[in-house]
């Protein structure tokens, strides 16, 4: 494949990238840190249904759900970036797909771990093949494999093409995994009635979690752009 232009016009040049990184270091990350701290404080003080152990562990839900939704957003980003790469053949799409895949794996691992901790308290078992656990595990595996595949291909152009094809197939697989996992007998709490204060706590947690996920994707992306620039010999 020689369709890929070796010096694509990147949407981000070095000066911009440096300024953006500085702005993130000064404003974005401290803000995310403050909001996370506020979130932790609120979670410690929000009233639960009753103060038994399950109810205490129940609070992990405020992290679990926002992270799960952000995982899905990261997977969607991989899908969009993969389509973008195959249709435009610009390397920055591939960098974006890689950044999002990495964050999807990280967030997916957090979803699995928080879910397992909660399951241990609620069901007295670390793992059970309930539909949603199965779904989260397979979703996580799909994107771990994408990173493994990327790591084992040396040619940059081939890696981009193959990982874009895989990114599309993997995302199309997600609804099928979800539907087929639903065939397994359910034991996950389907819906959970929440007090307004609990809803607000959950809404509060969405902000820092989404900021951290977006910030991580952006940082990985900027790093990959800089590596690309170095590899291209300082020219773009």
């Amino acid at each position, binding site marked *: *494949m020689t369709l890929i232009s070796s010096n694509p016009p990147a949407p981000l040049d070095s000066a911009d990238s440096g300024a953006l990184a500085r702005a993130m270091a000064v404003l974005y990350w401290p803000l995310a840190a403050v909001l996370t701290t506020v979130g932790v404080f609120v979670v410690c003080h929000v009233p639960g249904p009753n103060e038994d152990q399950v109810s205490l562990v129940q609070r992990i839900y405020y992290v679990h759900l926002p992270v799960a939704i952000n995982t899905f957003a990261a997977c969607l980003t991989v899908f969009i970036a993969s389509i973008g790469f*195959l249709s435009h053949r610009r390397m920055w799409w591939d960098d974006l797909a890689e950044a999002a895949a990495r964050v999807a794996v990280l967030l997916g691992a957090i979803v699995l771990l928080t879910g397992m901790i909660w399951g241990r308290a609620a069901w007295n078992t670390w793992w059970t093949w309930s539909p949603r656990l*199965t779904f989260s595990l*397979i979703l996580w*595996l*799909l994107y771990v*494999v994408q990173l*493994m*595949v990327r790591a*084992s*291909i040396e*040619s940059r152009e*081939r890696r981009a*093409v*193959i990982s*874009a*094809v*895989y990114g*599309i*197939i*993997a995302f*199309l*697989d997600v609804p*099928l*995994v979800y*539907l*087929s*996992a639903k*065939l*397994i007998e359910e034991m996950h709490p389907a819906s959970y009635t929440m007090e307004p204060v609990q809803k607000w706590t959950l809404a509060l947690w969405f902000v820092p979690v989404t900021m951290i996920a977006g910030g991580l994707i952006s940082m990985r992306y900027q790093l990959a752009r800089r590596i690309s620039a170095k590899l291209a010999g300082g020219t773009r």
Partner: protein
Amino acid sequence: MIATLRQIGLLAGKDLRIEARSRQTLGLVIILGVLIVIVLGLGLGPQQAAGFGAPAVLWVAYLFAGVLCFEKTMAIERHDGAMAGLLLAPVDRGVIYAGKLLSNLALMLAVALVITPAGILFFGFDLSAAPWTFACVIGLSMIGFAAVGTLFSAVVSSTRLQGGLLAMMVFPIALPLVISSTQLLLRVFRDGKAVDGEALAILIAFDAIFLVVSWLVFEWVLEP
């Protein structure tokens, strides 16, 4: 349309003729599949092995046997620049995909015809309730599995990567097939219920989605 079908037939015929003359793949894959069934039967022991483990055990055998078949059918294009010749042929890349898919399906059918009776026999799985349901479910699953496997075998083959990678790429993608077909078979054979329309729809949707998408993206993954 007729010309396309003829081209697909020619390409698949070429692969199957090579296999019929060299007999490199089938014997190996069938023995491997039967070995997997035996190892799982022994590992589970007489208590666990009797009953409804057969679909799961058969799936393990199909997955590994399938990956070997897909690898071999694509690997024959690696010798003597055959892939360059194939790419220079005046046919659509999608036709090459369909040809490879057809030869893979023929190989899988041959393998399944040996492994399935072995699994059913060793695990005492009673097919008499709905033999055609069993055949249809396994057939639909095989089509979806081969659709994804054929695409990724071209990916792996073109990058000269080691064998384990194909299994790593195909297994997670094929898991919806495994879950829905085993759940469907358990409901029909263990619980004596009617065929679950939803599970069947997932199998058909999987086949349709990945046949179309693989046909579309196949040209990007091929490389001489």
